[in-house]
């Protein structure tokens, strides 16, 4: 239990403000990186003329979305319709709190940090369902149904993969998990848990609804999936929360498998950010490289491969820890 003193409260407020800044800045930077990377992969310059080398492009887009008409179609459940984008954006804020960005740079030191993250990341899925349901649109509803089954499916191997690392370090506290790892790459958890790392890497793409697993918003089948009816800021909030979720799973991945804020020569938050953004660039890279999978393929990958593999991995970890 943590004490709720004034200092603690102030720390959480400051952390929340910093995290909002991080989320917004991350979205702006990632939109630019994504469009540039897409251009690079497709052999074209990408955004180039708006600002020096197109750097202001993402700012222009967000300001345009701010000035766009907010359109509420007839027959929507307007309360839920308004609530869904807000519910997509704000819970992510909470999820960043237990992440150890540096040795002393943590929003809130909780013993069950990873439990908090896994539990509250479900709210993001609820917001997708609400968006699809309340917009009274068949594509929205289909996208929402897909979002649910995909999130439920991919959460399980993800938790199994994280659980094997938790077995290894014997704690749910994210800071302590980092403390158990060393500064050099061969002391990180990825060396003793390569399979868990791979499973986590696949399921984080499924968890954040990114291509090739972007079935909830599959453009060619479902117009735009659950956010079909959202214009202007509603859409922008969904966009923002997608990038924030990507950043969150990248941070968790860096914490669990890649030694968190520890790195060669000098530990510090820079290593955390370098690792997280390398994973983000990796996610962008697969998005523009692979075509979208079919829905049965998506679930087959999960139930037939990732889940048995992660269970075997967990078993082997447990047996080795017990008897070796």
């Amino acid at each position, binding site marked *: 239990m943590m004490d709720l003193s004034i200092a603690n409260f102030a720390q959480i407020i400051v952390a929340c403000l910093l995290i909002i800044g991080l989320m917004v800045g991350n979205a702006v930077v990632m939109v630019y990186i994504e469009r540039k990377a897409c251009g690079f992969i497709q052999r074209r310059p990408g955004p180039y003329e*708006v600002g020096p080398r197109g750097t202001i492009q993402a700012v*222009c887009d967000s300001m345009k979305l701010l000035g766009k*008409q907010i359109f509420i179609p007839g027959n929507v459940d307007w309360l839920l319709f308004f609530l869904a984008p807000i519910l997509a954006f704000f819970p992510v804020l909470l999820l960043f709190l237990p992440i150890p960005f540096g040795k002393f740079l943590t929003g809130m030191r909780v013993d069950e940090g990873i439990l908090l993250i896994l539990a509250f990341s479900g709210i993001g899925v609820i917001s997708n369902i609400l968006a699809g349901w309340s917009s009274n649109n068949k594509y929205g509803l289909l996208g929402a149904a897909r979002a649910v089954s995909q999130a439920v499916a991919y959460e399980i191997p993800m938790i199994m993969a994280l659980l094997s690392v938790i077995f290894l370090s014997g704690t749910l506290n994210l800071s302590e998990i980092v403390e158990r790892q060393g500064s050099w790459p061969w002391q990180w958890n990825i060396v003793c848990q390569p399979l868990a790392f791979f499973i986590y890497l696949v399921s984080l793409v499924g968890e954040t609804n990114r291509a090739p697993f972007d079935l909830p918003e599959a453009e060619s089948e479902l117009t735009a999936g659950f956010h079909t009816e959202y214009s202007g800021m509603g859409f922008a909030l969904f966009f923002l929360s997608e990038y924030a979720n990507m950043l969150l799973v990248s941070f968790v991945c860096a914490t669990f498998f890649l030694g968190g804020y520890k790195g060669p020569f000098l530990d510090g938050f820079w290593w955390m950010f370098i690792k997280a953004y390398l994973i983000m660039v990796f996610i962008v890279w697969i998005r523009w490289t692979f075509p979208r999978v079919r829905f049965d393929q998506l679930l087959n990958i999960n139930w037939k491969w990732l889940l048995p593999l992660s269970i075997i991995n967990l078993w082997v970890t447990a047996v080795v820890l017990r008897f070796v």
Partner: protein
Amino acid sequence: MAAPDRAVSEGPGPITRAEVLPPLVNLRPLNWFFDVNRAMSLWPVTFGLACCAIEMMAVSMSRFDIARFGAEVFRPSIRQADLMMVTGTVSRKMAPALVRLYEQMPAPKFVMACGNCAISGGPFKFEGQYGIVEGVDRLVPVDVYVPGCPPRPEAILEGVFAIQEKILGVRVWPRPKEMPSQPASPKATKA
């Protein structure tokens, strides 16, 4: 459910008009700021009707790359788009769907008529034809006409610049050398 589709009348029928209200906060610098942002990120709809759509695809690919000007985000949902490129022949069958799409687009919206078919019916305009709407401006208000059959990708890019010019009042990008100068002003024609 959406309202039933209106029948497309013969000849220039009632045009769907966007209702334009003055902005709530009418400050010049603020309007200018938002106008610049609107001009710099015109997101088109993923929407093509005929062969001009192939040129629209070409303009977003590596040789011409509309992404340089921030207009490569082809939104599949009309609610998130700003620009409707009517690329190709509008058949009478397609017309209600097109009108409905236009009506579903949120407010700062622009329409570009790409190619001769969308401008006037093009090669399909002859006496006794019954299947083609002769010009998309009979259905929805058009901002920019891009001639060609089909227009070159450069022409579509030029159309995007023309919409940006329409939003901002000035041309943003330098004018190419070969292009004829601005349409002559009344003064110039007299002289």
